């Protein structure tokens, strides 16, 4: 868990990807209905799923 120092790029890689997914989700539902709405739901559920995943992972 606690090991070598990470570079800023390593630390912010995942947060940056999450931010891009979220922005995509926010814009997608604006652009259209149907498939656009659905991809928006998936994209915006992603951060929620991550919080849930890491909380459950800790419980094990």
């Amino acid at each position, binding site marked *: *868990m606690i090991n070598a120092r990470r570079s800023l790029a390593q630390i912010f890689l995942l947060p940056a990807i999450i*931010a891009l997914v979220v922005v995509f989700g926010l814009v997608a539902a604006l652009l259209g209905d149907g498939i656009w*709405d659905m991809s*928006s739901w998936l994209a915006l559920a992603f*951060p929620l799923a991550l919080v849930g995943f*890491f909380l459950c992972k800790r419980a094990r």
Partner: protein
Amino acid sequence: MTPRTVRVWKHVHKWTSLVCTLFLFILCLTGLPLIFHEEIDRALGATAAPDRAAADAPMISLDRVLEIGHAQRPNEAITFAVPDDDDPVWHLFIAPAINSPKVAAVVTIDGRTGRVLRVGDSTRSPVIKFITDLHTDLLLDEKGMLFLGAIGLCFVIAIVSGVVVYGPFMRRLDFGTVRERTRRLYWLDLHNLSGIVLAAWMLVVGVTGAINTLAQQIARHWQRTELVEMIAPWRNAPAPANPASAQRAMETALASAPGMKVSSIAMPGSLFAGGHHYGVFLHGDTPLTSKLIMPIMINAADGSFSESRELPWYAKALFISKPLHFGDYGGMPLKVIWALLDLVTLIVLGSGLYLWAVRLYAAPSRRSGTVTHALRPQAPEHP
């Protein structure tokens, strides 16, 4: 980053967060039911159901609708006629006088049968109206709105500074690490995880919320500049004694912009139309263009087209901000996700406040040199 800059950012995060946390609690808690305001209003019976009529029953003339509405409130003025988003229904906004910005009542009339379906203070139920007012201006009108705008900016700085201090904090930790050694570590890690994961969403909702607080300023600026310029040639013309048909004005406006629908119609003499015109506001029918309004000025003397001008960028920014703040543009699943994101934001706020309180409480013992604090293994923590 040097340890000194990290310390400065941590202070920025702490103080901006402290300033806005109480208000953000109010905003998150009132915002939660507002995500579902349509459903709640419907359940409370505040939404008038249209009469049962054949699906292809024709709409009666808007002029007749205005007559029916006027008969309901003969001593007041109709400032706006707004078609419902979903039903063949008109909402008529009633004010004490034609040039008043206030809404004294909303009369809802079936567009096919002409029956008055509902007369209310607003289009919303009293409960939702109260929560909306609390959320938009803390019940303090425009001052409250601008104050919440400043709180929104504070929130944005708190998020940005939080992201900055997340970097040095995570130097020796894996993404998503949630330690359970102490309660404080647990909430610290949860604060960092949920905060960084929600940063983009919170930023968007914070920025768009702050833009929404400028709604009245933006409307007034548009009236003083764009509207005044559009109707400048009629500046000194007397208001027509017998205004042309509102129905015809609406049809002329629609004919000038194929593919668009009516968003609202400002009556001659009202603040959004000027004395000599109908202000017909149209919007497109795709999810994006439906948020963008196109004003079309129709001469109230003869019902002819006068002028139309795309909205300026700041008004467009306002109209795009609304859905991005409300989360009401992607069906029920998006609303549910919006509500869950709001709840996780409450966790970020609550854990942040807890961590600050614990620090405050623990500070004296730390000064006396407790070993456990001195030996803490990882680099800077926050807040």
